[in-house]
């Protein structure tokens, strides 16, 4: 039987032994130089970045909805209605979430979409509605903090306003991406977003819906996470 106290004593003696062996082995020596020109070469103009991202992500079954800064909430809403989604999980505390809810309410006020997709706020700890989250939610909506042109990919920083599981548990993930935030590569994104200096408890890149090729190398989508990833791509390049 082990308990946490004895294991931590064992751990610290293991730590000391391991580190002293590593030190005794003698690291040091001249460090080989890092030539990053191969990474710097990966650069494209803004519009090409947008096209590349889209191509890369479409190749792995991501779907795109074209939108403008003015109409993206309507585009999101039209999608939900078209797909007959029962509900859409969103983060009321995030900027994008708040805007979505406001426009949604305004539309409803204007008499549109009664009975359509319900907005469902993620406003309490997951423990309070884990079952419902897993079994009763059709789609989740999140913003992004950027995109990656080279390979295609969305960058997300889940937080209190936009929790981690929104982009993972519901079968459809709807993500808002502003074209002006698309970086050349993951490498340049890390630098641009300052991720090397400070990272929140969770940050991630998503390039498509969940997939597997574990059965005979045959691709199958939606193995654990979302079966569909829908990017609402807001073309704000002229404005930027």
């Amino acid at each position, binding site marked *: *039987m*082990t*308990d*946490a106290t*004895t*294991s*931590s004593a*064992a*751990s*610290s003696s*293991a730590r000391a*032994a*391991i*580190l002293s*062996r*590593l030190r005794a*082995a003698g*690291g*040091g*020596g001249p*460090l080989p*130089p*890092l*030539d*990053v*020109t*191969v990474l710097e070469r990966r650069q494209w103009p803004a519009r090409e970045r947008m096209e590349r991202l889209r191509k*890369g992500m479409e190749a*792995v079954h991501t779907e795109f909805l074209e939108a403008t800064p003015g109409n993206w909430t309507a585009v999101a809403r039209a999608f939900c209605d078209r797909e007959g989604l029962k509900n859409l999980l969103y983060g009321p505390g995030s900027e994008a979430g708040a805007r979505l809810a406001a426009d949604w309410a305004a539309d409803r006020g204007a008499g549109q979409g009664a009975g359509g997709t319900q907005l469902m706020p993620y406003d309490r700890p997951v423990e309070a509605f884990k079952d419902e989250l*897993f079994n009763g939610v059709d789609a989740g909506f999140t913003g992004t903090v950027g995109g990656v042109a*080279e*390979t295609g*990919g969305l960058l997300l920083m*889940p937080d*209190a306003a936009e*929790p*981690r*599981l929104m982009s*993972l*548990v519901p079968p459809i993930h709807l993500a808002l991406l502003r074209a002006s935030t698309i970086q050349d590569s*993951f*490498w340049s994104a*890390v630098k641009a977003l300052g991720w*090397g200096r400070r*990272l929140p*408890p*969770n*940050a*991630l*890149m998503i390039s498509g819906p*969940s997939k*597997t090729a*574990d*059965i*005979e*190398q045959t691709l*199958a989508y939606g*193995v*654990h*996470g979302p079966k569909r990833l829908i990017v609402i791509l807001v073309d704000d390049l002229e404005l930027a």
Partner: protein
Amino acid sequence: MHAELEVHFRDSAAKALLDPQLRANFRRAMDGLMAKRKAQFPDPADLQDLRDLSTAIRSRSLLNLPDLLEQFEANCTKNGIRVHWAETCEEANELILGILQSKGAKTLVKGKSMVSEEMHLNAFLEQHGIEALESDLGEYIIQLDGETPSHIIMPAIHKNKDQIARQFSQKIKDAKYTEDVDELTAMARKVLRQKFLDADAGLSGVNFAVAETGTLCLVENEGNGRMSTHVPPLHIAVMGLEKVVARLEDVAPLYAILTRSATGQAVSTYFNLITGPRGTGEKDGPQDVHLVILDNGRSRIYADPQLRATLRCIRCGACMNHCPVYTRVGGHAYEAVYPGPIGKILTPQMEGVGVRHDLIHGSSLCGACGEVCPVEIPIPEILVRLRREATHTDAGSQVAGKGTGRTRTEDWAWRLWAGLLKRPRLYRLAAWFATRFGKALPAGAPLIQNWTRTRTKPVPARRSLQERMRSEAQSGGTRHD
């Protein structure tokens, strides 16, 4: 020191070779993976630049390893990740059991982790009444059959659709027989989502550990890694001590070359950066994150300047995808956690070069592995070095089990060989006999017998090249023979 089990790669490989289904499964899979990787690297110069950079990053990480580990640990701790250290697999297992028990956890869902395979964690937890369920689809498939992974990236690659279909229909409750991959996947999804929901804890491996930020990086396509690390209240990560790199910036090229080399993907579906448990105000994510850093022989490998390159490995599996031996015998024939070329150099260093002697000789030294390795590990050279270590006891060597693979017969054989070949007159005499009577050697003679299983016996020419050149010289340099 270890269970000194003599393992016969030759025998298990021979058995595997007799299974046409297995051979077809691997051949098809490896051909596909090689083609996909190739398509990702259209420009050889660009690939070489990326390999050079990746190699340099991994080499620097190793040069600074103790410092980076301490920096990493300090940053993890600051972020609220509890860091534990284990010298052996037994210690690591005990640590994890202790953590689980302190939280009263009874069920554990696992993302893919080769280190946990190295530890045989599932069996250990099972013995202590904790259910450990693999959630990567491939791992789930093999766990259903009580098998081990046959590939480090694609654990169920040895199975085909029909085999999986049969297995699911027998082992999953209420499952009907289907060979439709989407339907099979949907069945697993249904079972596993419930498990994620119910699990008391989740376990994951670590692809890269970032020292400057105290971050665990996880590369995956399925989302089971995210499920295992974000849904249960407790997340335990395990990693080999070599996984640390200095900066997140350094991870970018390693990640880029990892997915391309492994499965021929430009990018994985998810690249997940975990830098702490659920933060203030966060509504989900685990309340506790623990990390176990495992040595298990790595610090000894580290001590040798040449063998240290083994630790550059980023576990992409490209070496096995391109290995002509692996392609034919599959992963299980190696009877080791890590199969293929990387396994051939890693396993003997962990378990002892003597006991895994036939593993280090199970290679034609064709060099395909070293050629594709994204971090340029000279696998063939390391194999030759380990063959040396297995049969010699050089001063200063710290290799596990050095000299224990030595046999009198082999010693004598090489002594005879050298005795003959360093004496040209003797060689000339032997050559004369070989060219005159070589034909008469029975095809069933030892060694020749091994050759003639699948081939005709080679017959020496009637006159050797040297003989012909001698007569040419004597007859004044005429040009015909």
